[in-house]
């Protein structure tokens, strides 16, 4: 009997769209990849939003409901989830997701249904010709991530750099970033080798890079498996330095990479080295708070960059909601418009990664302050001013 009732309830919910939130609550939808290839970083995003929700779950007396969905690393599922959040859960704002294609897909839905969207992965959808886009992207642009580290290479006298990266959108973004930096006088990129996360060997790719005799290597992998080319290159006797992006900031990368990864330098959001920052740094105070809450909620240290994006996305939302609540009621189209306008009008919002200034002209609101260079020394990331 209970099963029958449940079934009927589920059917009714399906046909008419369930809505349980009270009128005064703000509802936020969050999408990440808890399964599939992107789950390695997706789980960090999830932990970040858990910390953020624990940090603050109400704005000016309005309770915030958080609806979380998994997209299984599939952009189709991300699209479907975005529609579900808007049409079934009637969210006021969406945050997501852990892959660039999925984030683009969600942004497309946000633009159609006119609901504010905070992207926590890079986006590359063109800005609409009329009106304003309905989304922003929290992370540093991939070009900026690569530029900061490429500038560091130049400073250290490196003329040529080999590239090995993933056979996916992340590999594309890093390679394109390096190519863009090349034009500004940063090191020449000598190779474009790719591998997949589940590959059993990168010997061939490493040999190919070695053949181009670069001064250093730029690693376009992410998370644990980014260690594979470093291990292989050292095995083949490569003596040059290793450089990378924030995607390498991962506990298991450090563990697997071991000696080979020691000395690798990556660009990173300041949140990675919060405790090493000077007290005057914008990220010191909020970052310390973030690490505290994160540890309490997730029982582990926040040693990745991704959870910080979720957290910053949440801060951007909180700041915007504070403003928007003055003019409109949650759950209304007016509130959505007000939220989006508040995101644009709030200036110098300090997060754990960056100081954010958004405009309708671009999705990104970060500047050079959002990245520092850190170096892996004896298994610890050390701030390199």
């Amino acid at each position: 009997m209970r099963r029958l009732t449940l079934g009927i309830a589920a059917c009714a919910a399906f046909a008419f769209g369930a809505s349980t939130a009270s009128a005064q609550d703000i509802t936020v939808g969050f999408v990440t990849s808890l399964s599939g290839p992107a789950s390695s970083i997706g789980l960090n995003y999830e932990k970040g939003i858990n910390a953020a929700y624990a940090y603050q779950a109400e704005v000016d007396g309005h309770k915030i409901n958080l609806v979380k969905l998994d997209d299984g690393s599939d952009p189709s599922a991300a699209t479907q989830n975005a529609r579900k959040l808007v049409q079934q859960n009637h969210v006021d704002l969406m945050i997501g997701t852990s892959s660039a294609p999925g984030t683009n897909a969600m942004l497309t839905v946000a633009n159609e249904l006119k609901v504010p969207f905070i992207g926590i992965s890079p986006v590359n959808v063109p800005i609409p010709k009329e009106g304003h886009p309905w989304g922003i992207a929290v992370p540093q642009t991939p070009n900026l991530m690569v530029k900061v580290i490429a500038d560091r290479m130049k400073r250290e006298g490196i003329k040529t750099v080999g590239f090995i990266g993933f056979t996916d959108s992340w590999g594309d973004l890093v390679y394109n970033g390096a190519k863009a930096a090349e034009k500004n006088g940063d090191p020449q990129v000598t190779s474009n080798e790719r591998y997949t996360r589940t590959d059993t060997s990168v010997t061939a790719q490493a040999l190919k890079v070695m053949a181009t005799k670069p001064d250093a290597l730029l690693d376009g992998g992410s998370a644990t498996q980014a260690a594979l080319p470093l291990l292989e290159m050292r095995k083949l006797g490569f003596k040059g330095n290793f450089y990378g992006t924030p995607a390498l900031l991962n506990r298991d990368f450090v563990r697997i990479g071991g000696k080979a990864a020691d000395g690798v330098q990556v660009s990173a959001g300041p949140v990675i080295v919060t405790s090493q920052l000077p007290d005057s740094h914008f990220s010191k105070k909020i970052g310390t708070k973030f690490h505290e809450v994160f540890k309490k909620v997730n029982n582990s240290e926040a040693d990745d960059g991704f959870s910080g994006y979720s957290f910053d996305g949440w801060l951007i939302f909180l700041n915007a909601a504070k403003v928007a609540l003055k003019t409109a009621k949650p759950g209304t189209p007016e509130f959505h418009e007000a939220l989006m306008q508040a995101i644009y009008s709030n200036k110098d919002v300090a997060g754990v990664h960056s100081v954010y200034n958004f405009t309708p002209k671009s999705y990104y609101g970060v500047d050079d302050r959002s990245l520092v260079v850190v170096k892996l020394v004896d298994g610890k990331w050390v701030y390199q001013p």
Partner: protein
Amino acid sequence: MNSQIAAILTMDGVATGAIYVLIALGFVLIFAVTRIIFVPFGDITAFTALTLADLEAKRLPGTASMIAVLALAAALMEVAALLRSGATNRIPRALIYYLVLPLVPATIVWATAGLAMPAPLRIALTMALILPLAPLLDRIVFRPIADASVLLLLIVSVALHFALVGIGLLFFGPEGVRTQSLVDYSAMIAGTPVSGETLLIVASAAFFSFLLYLFFNFTLTGKALHATAMNRTGARLMGIRPQQSGTIAFLLGSLLAAVSGVLIAPVNTIFYDSGFLIGLKAFVGAIIGGLVSFPVTAIGSVLVGVLESFAAFQSSPFKEVIVFSVLIPVLLWRSWSFVHADEEDEE
């Protein structure tokens, strides 16, 4: 490309290919006896590596509870089936096989979790833990549909793979592992440094292929399996129970997967979902052997490994495209030379 690079690439390819050999032999073995294309093979290899890494890190591996749950389910299904057919006298035996035996290694692992163990003991324990995995999955998933078409079995096999990947993520998390080296040795072959691990992998592949050869040609069980593979009905008439043959085939398959898992763990980072692509490439090797011939399968698998290595050097972004495109001419050649007009599909 100079000869030095070619030598390194070949070594690398042979080592990868040797792993494929072990898995591909398992594919052929299980398909020949049960008509099941056992897609989750690679997953079992990955689970072995992850289990070993957990033991190394003095954690309780998720496989222990997974085996316990599967053993319980299989035992329940078996007892229910025996009750229905009235063969109650066979229940104690079924309980020993499906419940007690798989639970022994699981219990040991559970009891010793967190203790430091020497490497050989860890490996032995991991293998003992993994061994019952494939036979249990066979009992739970495939036995009820043993008479279905190859297609249906294949689809169910794929669904099982999805389920296992999900379970793997749940138990082992999304991060990869790499275990300590098994041997600390390095040799020079043709002016190329070759690690002891590579030699061990190749030697193991050769050894287990030889063992299988002996098993099939010189033992009664092996001959019975061979008979089942050739003609199911005939074998049944000769008093060979196809179910039993199936269980033995899955047990051997589990063994091969476990061995390849132990071997690959120290040389590569293994994730919960690494198994699929490894399995798929091994499968290309199995297809080259037409899913029937063991020697051709072994040669084919090594070829796939070498091809993969050279393809990665030529054009790494298109590596998979090259490897899988090779399959098509191979299949065409297979289909022209081995399948005759009198082959009739099941209706």
